[in-house]
């Protein structure tokens, strides 16, 4: 199995020799930041393109196909346009908060993006309380959304932001609960250890079997709601609130919301892949040594990205199938169904673990 620390450790040693310890760390930080932002941008483009093509396929259409071959330059032209578009400053709004809100959203999504374990040894943020950190940073985004709604001085925005606040904060509960269930199984909150464990013992979704599978489904539902994606796209439900909390944003400020929306899906899917589907761990079947050998040849980040896109596919599928829920139905679903179920799952998992019924 390819270990990314084989690359980073010599690099660190080399830089330390060249620049001294502290300067080396600064240089590495810059390098990592550049790498992170570029991967972020690349993933955003892939996501936007994928969504447009996938939804076209669902809808008996072709989708973008004129800009570049198969329309693959479409997103680039969108980005160019967005960057050169005017950013409108509104009168009688809180300008500082209005401008800062999209940055908060995009920062939150970027930081959570940095938590993803791409490969063995290739993880930017890795704490022993990684899961906890992820949840904490992820909820900064909702502040941005609330600020956007409040500072826009627009009634639609305000309603959208209020919905968003109610929705995201509620669904964070069941996400936390489901993660707790899985932490109960793994016994660690560090993403890298969770992955390592799954590489050694098998994917969590198989290890936790009857508890992990419903937990996975609940995570997908709640994660989808966290990303404000259909059928939970109430905060920006275009047929009711024109564009919800970002109604008044134009140009690149709007672009940040757009970007963050798509990246949040990647993050949501990536965490699902990490916690339930083994992260970068290859698919192995005990006993089939030849098969396992071949599987292990495939590098970890391929596994990780592959699993992430599998989950993204699931999310896109249901995004383009279901109609939108109503706000009271969303809250009912969360408080009356998902939270009780996930609490039960937590207890069930505790029982499984304590009786040694996991694999």
């Amino acid at each position, binding site marked *: 199995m390819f270990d990314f620390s084989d690359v980073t450790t010599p690099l660190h040693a080399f830089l330390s020799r060249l620049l001294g310890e502290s300067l080396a760390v600064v240089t590495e930080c810059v390098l990592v930041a550049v790498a992170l932002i570029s991967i972020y941008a690349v993933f955003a483009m892939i996501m936007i393109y994928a969504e447009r093509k996938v*939804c076209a396929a*669902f*809808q*008996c*259409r072709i989708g973008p196909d004129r800009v570049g071959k198969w329309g693959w330059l479409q997103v680039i032209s969108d980005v160019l346009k967005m960057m050169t578009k005017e950013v409108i400053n509104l009168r009688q709004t809180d300008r500082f908060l209005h401008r800062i809100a999209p940055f908060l959203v995009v920062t939150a999504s970027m930081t959570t993006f940095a938590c993803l374990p791409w490969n063995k040894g290739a993880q930017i943020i890795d704490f022993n309380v990684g899961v906890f950190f992820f949840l904490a940073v992820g909820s900064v985004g909702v502040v941005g959304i609330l600020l956007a709604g409040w500072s826009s001085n627009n*009634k*639609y925005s305000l*309603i959208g932001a209020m919905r968003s606040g109610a929705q995201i904060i509620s669904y964070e509960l069941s996400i936390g609960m489901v993660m707790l269930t899985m932490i109960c199984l793994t016994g660690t909150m560090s993403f890298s250890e969770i992955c390592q464990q799954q590489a050694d013992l098998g994917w969590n979704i198989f290890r936790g079997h009857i508890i992990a599978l419903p937990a996975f489904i609940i995570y997908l539902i709640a994660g989808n709601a966290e990303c404000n994606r*259909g*059928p939970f*796209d*109430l905060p920006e*439900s*275009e*047929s*009711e*609130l*024109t564009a919800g909390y970002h109604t008044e944003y134009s140009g690149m400020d709007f672009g940040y919301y757009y970007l963050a929306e798509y990246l949040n899906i990647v993050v949501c899917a990536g965490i699902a892949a990490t916690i339930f589907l083994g992260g970068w761990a290859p698919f192995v079947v005990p006993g089939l040594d030849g098969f396992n050998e071949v599987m292990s040849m495939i590098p970890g980040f391929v596994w990780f990205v592959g699993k992430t896109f599998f989950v993204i596919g699931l999310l896109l599928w249901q995004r*383009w*199938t*279901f*109609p*939108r*829920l*109503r*706000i*009271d*139905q969303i809250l009912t679903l969360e408080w009356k169904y998902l939270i009780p179920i996930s609490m039960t799952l937590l207890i069930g998992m505790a029982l499984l673990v304590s009786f040694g019924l996991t694999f």
Partner: protein
Amino acid sequence: MEENEKSICPETPQPQPVQEEKKETAPTDKSTSQPTAAPTPKPAAPRPTPPPASPAKNEIKPEVVTPEELHERLAHLKAEGYSLLENLTGTDWGEEGMGVVYSLTNPETFDMTHVKVIAADKETPYLDSVTDLWDIANFYEREVYDFYGIIFLNHPDLRRLFLREDWVGHPFRKNGYEESNNPEIAETDEPISDLAVKYTLTPDGKLHKEETPLFAEEDYVINLGPQHPSTHGVLHFRTRLEGEIITKIDPHLGYIHRGIEKISEELTYPQTLALTDRMDYLGAMQNRHALCMCIEQALGVEVSDRVQVIRTIMDELQRIDSHLLFFSCLCQDLGATTSFLYGFRDREKVLDIFEETCGGRLILNYNMIGGLAYDIHPNFQRRVKEFIPMMRKNLKEYDDIFTGNVIFQNRSKGVGILSKEQVISFGCTGGTGRASGWHNDLRKHRPYAAYDRVEFKEVVRTEGDSFARYMIRLDEIRESLHIIEQLIDNIPEGKIAEKMKPVLKLPVGSYYSAVEGSRGILGVHIESKGDKMPYRLHYRATGLPLVAVMDTACTGYMIADLIAIGGTIDYVVPDIDR
């Protein structure tokens, strides 16, 4: 072969090979139209009874009452069972003064009676309001006030309905209206008043105006529209919210008011036809059918059987087209974008059929006074026959992807419930009325064209909620397919257009005809003074009652429900504003 000898039952259509049906040119003489190539006699729907050419069977002879006894008389008629105010036409009769024709209908038997009243005062005419008898009178009277300046006493909210509140004058008045008083392009934003105006008569016979606020100072009012994706056009709802709950809706109309009725007064009868398609563009065939039928009946022209059958088929295709768009837009409004595209995919097939015969996709211009513009295309029957099974199959697909969806069911069941009394009082015809258990299909109750000789079910449900309204439309597509199936092989031979005089002049009188449009009863009221142009042409818009009922239907539900209710009530804004 004489027409009345063809007596093959229409319920059992016999499929005919396509190449045998040579109907590209309409034969002028029926006796020579024996199809020589056909081995079997062509099955044709029998004409029930050849009606005598009685002139103007749709002429109405309204009972004239004085303004003083108007309210009492109407209340009496309502108590007698005429509890539907189907139409209300304001007219400026010039010398006689301004007045109103009330068209009342019995919602069970569909008998009609008409009451005419002329206001005494010619400068500031006033009449008693009947808003206490019928809810829909509220909007109808506001419309008349807007057009003619007739003041309705005790009307709770007598503002203008269509024109800007700072509009000068009343454009439908025959004299005294100066067009130059109003700018073509308004420079300023419209001053939207928050005051409801009520006029009462003081004991000494003077008008007293009182103003009450529509919304309180601390109310949270949001404007849905005029530019809003879910109002299906430029409609403006001022919505008062309590959290997410709607407590009041004040519809604001007129953003697409083009004054079609006023323009028509300066056009000859054949010219007026051009504007009908643009009113309710999803019922282009039916609108035009209504106007043609009204003029033909007024002239005493009897169109051929072939025309009747083709008109019926076209009306039903149009209904399918409209209901498919209804389905698509509802899905779009509820966030199910994929179903939206499925609906449009199938709608294109209907448009293909239209395009081949009529040349247009949306604005069809097919019906003419006395017949049709052109004969059907040779491919018409084949394509329709291909379309029917395909549509049946795809309806199942809709059920799979949307109707059965638990989210949709939760969002539509028990939402926006309208009782039967409410829909009758508001005059909500069409699917909206039928969803509340009111049998109001004019195709059954006042049959016209070829509807009396086809077998179909009047789809009625009793729940009155959004889901019922949705299901009605889908079931009506099935019924329409069934109707077309019966007729498509039985299109009789005949003239496609009667020979009409070059200049048409309707006899003096008032005429009213109605058809079942895609969204309800579409009526045409013509006042003629014997000219080649209508003195007054009024359409009973299907959409106006549907918008009027929105306040009642939405109060107590959420903003998201407003979208679902508006979507299922299915109004088309240019039809409301005309």
